[in-house]
């Protein structure tokens, strides 16, 4: 029966198509509301603003595919940005190294706790988030005292336009995004990430050391969080404690809207990219609506919920 095949085929593309449809509709509405939106520089800026969320979503996608979640990702981002801004006087290389080590450390702790000690990922990362907030709140007045501006080169990489609408952050995203797609679809680790998320018992019975895969996932997630933090820092020029705060829910939402299940095992980064673009255009639209922050939050939450619901109904019948 080739019907089964066609059915499966259309079902998968149907969800992708609906993401495109949502994006285009949002895009057109935004353009109608704000004519400036359709200009090349504006599109460039929109893409540019999407990059940090896209990077956070990359980390979150990897984590959620294993059946986990990382709610400490925003503080990891903030932390990495802090470290780079403070250590930059002693050389960019050293600063980046410190930030990198910080990300690996936090990812390792999260990953080991979840993978080896069987911690609930939600609690682990929420708790880690609280610890990090505390550490950095204490830190900025003591051991992390110093510059709060980002190095110029990072500001440039986060904002500079090459040729409209192409900008350096977009180029970076294209490179990193391709790497993530490669990881998830063409590498052994990618296969294991899906396997662990779909059925950890099956993976173990097939000889996979499940905890190693989870550890790798949380470290990767942490690194993408750090990269996103540098970019947000670069885009805003300076760092603050609430640098990436507002991006935690969007990072989860972008992944969920993009069709990755929070239970793991199904989905991918392509969907998360679509989710990122949809949420970014949505933010732009809400910003142009000239409405208060309150209304924006309500609409934002409602649309995220509606999209997640639509998607789950769409893929439910199986």
């Amino acid at each position, binding site marked *: *029966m*080739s019907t*089964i*095949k066609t059915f*499966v085929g259309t079902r*998968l593309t149907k969800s992708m198509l609906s993401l495109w449809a949502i994006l285009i509709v949002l895009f057109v509405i935004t353009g109608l509301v704000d004519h400036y939106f359709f200009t090349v520089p504006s599109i460039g800026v929109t893409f540019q603003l999407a990059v940090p969320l896209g990077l956070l979503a990359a980390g979150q996608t990897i984590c959620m595919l294993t059946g986990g979640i990382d709610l400490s990702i925003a503080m990891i981002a903030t932390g990495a940005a802090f470290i780079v801004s403070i250590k930059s006087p002693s050389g960019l290389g050293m600063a980046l190294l410190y930030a990198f080590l910080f990300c690996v450390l936090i990812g390792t702790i999260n990953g080991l706790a979840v993978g080896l000690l069987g911690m609930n990922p939600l609690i682990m990362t929420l708790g880690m988030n609280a610890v990090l907030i505390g550490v950095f709140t204490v830190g900025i007045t003591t051991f992390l005292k110093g510059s709060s501006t980002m190095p110029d080169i990072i500001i440039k990489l986060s904002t500079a336009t090459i040729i409209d609408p192409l900008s350096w952050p977009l180029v970076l995203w294209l490179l990193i995004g391709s790497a993530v797609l490669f990881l998830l679809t*063409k*590498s*052994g*680790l990618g*296969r*294991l990430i*899906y*396997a662990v998320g*779909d*059925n950890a*018992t*099956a*993976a*173990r*019975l*097939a*000889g*996979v*050391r499940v905890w*190693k895969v989870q550890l*790798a996932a949380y470290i990767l997630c942490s690194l993408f969080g750090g990269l996103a933090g540098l970019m947000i820092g670069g885009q805003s020029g300076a760092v603050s404690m609430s640098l990436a705060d507002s991006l935690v829910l969007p990072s989860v939402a972008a992944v969920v809207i993009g069709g990755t299940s929070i239970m793991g*095992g*199904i989905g991918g980064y392509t969907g998360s990219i679509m989710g990122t673009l949809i949420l970014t255009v949505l933010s732009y639209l809400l910003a142009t609506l000239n409405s208060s922050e309150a209304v924006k939050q309500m609409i934002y939450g409602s649309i995220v919920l509606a999209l997640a619901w639509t998607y789950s109904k769409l893929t439910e019948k*199986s």
Partner: protein
Amino acid sequence: MNKKALLKISNLAKSYGSVVALRDANFEVLPGEIHALLGANGAGKSTLVKILTGVISSDQGVIEVNGTPVKFTSPDNARKGGVAPVFQDPALIPDISIQRNLHLTGTNKNRFLKEIAQMGLTVDLNKLASEIELPLLRMIDLARALSHDPDLLILDEITAALPVDMAQKVISIMGQYKAQGKSVIFISHRLAEIEEICDRATVLRDGINVDTFDAAAGSEERIVASMLGDKNVSAKEHNQRSNKSENDILLKVEGLAGGKHLKSVSFEIHKGEVLGVAALEGQGQDLLFEILAGESKPSDGKIFINNNEVHFNHPDDAIKYGISYVPGDRKTALMPQRSIRENLALTRFRGLRNWGKINFRDEDSKVDGAIESLEIDTRAKSQVKRLSGGNQQKVTIGRWVTTGFDLLLCFDPTRGIDVGTKAQIYALIEKFANEGMAVLLFTSELREIQLACDRAIVLYEGKVQADLEYDNCDEASLLNAAHGLVGA
């Protein structure tokens, strides 16, 4: 029929996607009757019970109680309609006390205590359900069901793995219940029990009721005949590979023990040999397989491979020694949302060294080879959960074909699988043996032993009760040994 049926079901059918669980079931239960429901695994018994008790709804068909059509929408609903089930896995909530469990189902506490007292048992109502041993928990579940005075009691394999005294208690309770004019549907694999207590028996096969007859003493033959049907499982006349036992010993197990049921098991298996394992439910066979697969640790005993003692901490260790495991429940081995390809290739990425770029050309050839040699139907290849049970089972075996192995542990690989696929799996096992690999095969269908194995061991109460050569592996001998009736 002179009496009006208490329960009458007609044309009941249920499918899960492409898998037909129940095709066309029809039978009647009379008032004051103990009616046995029999059938091989996957024949549709449990589906039928679930429909009767409102756990799931049927696709078609009619259920009538006392002549009026009913549709049970939930277990609560069925209970109020006079149908109460007791399952093999007691439906008590583990984290709350027995008292609160009774409250949840609206059971009268005094009535319950009376039932328990009549069974000659005592129960501390303040204990949590999770603190109580399984046999007693089943009796509690039974007493709870009885407290609701159902017209029809459904006992689903309640005596499986129950100690003899408890099982006898259940039997006598059924007798008393019948004396009150109530009815029981009794599901059991223990034929002796059925002959002892049941009035009539209905046999299901492939989702259809094939026979109903009086279950008097001596009806065993008829039961077995109708359970097996005329399935001439197309395995050719078993060509015994002659020089089996002279081959080298691949695996030797000495005094293996673990968990509650596995006491002390010793046996050896030769290269190129298919060793059957037969046992009733709960004799420790599942743990034996898990230990050999590195999934569980033994509390005692030794495992030798090629005369070297080995210790497994993780399935990966067993795999390195060439031991592959096909678990009884396909769901534990498969990634339901992933493709056939990813499921087949999973073991390729075990070590850190294989985390990098996938060698797609090599993977293609291995995966295609497995699909071809196992004749896996790839029409629904994008998600394994869409495959039929038989094809899913082929995928779990095929995974090890792509990996390579010396010893394949197959736990009931043909459970709930259609006849054609069963034959393919036997053929496959024979092929493995011919290529010099060894297979340890547990099957709950004793008939399969002579179809697929060269030799068999029978487990009883956690020990090897009998080690039978091929010629002695007939069903009767296996059954006797499985009941502990012949010495090793």
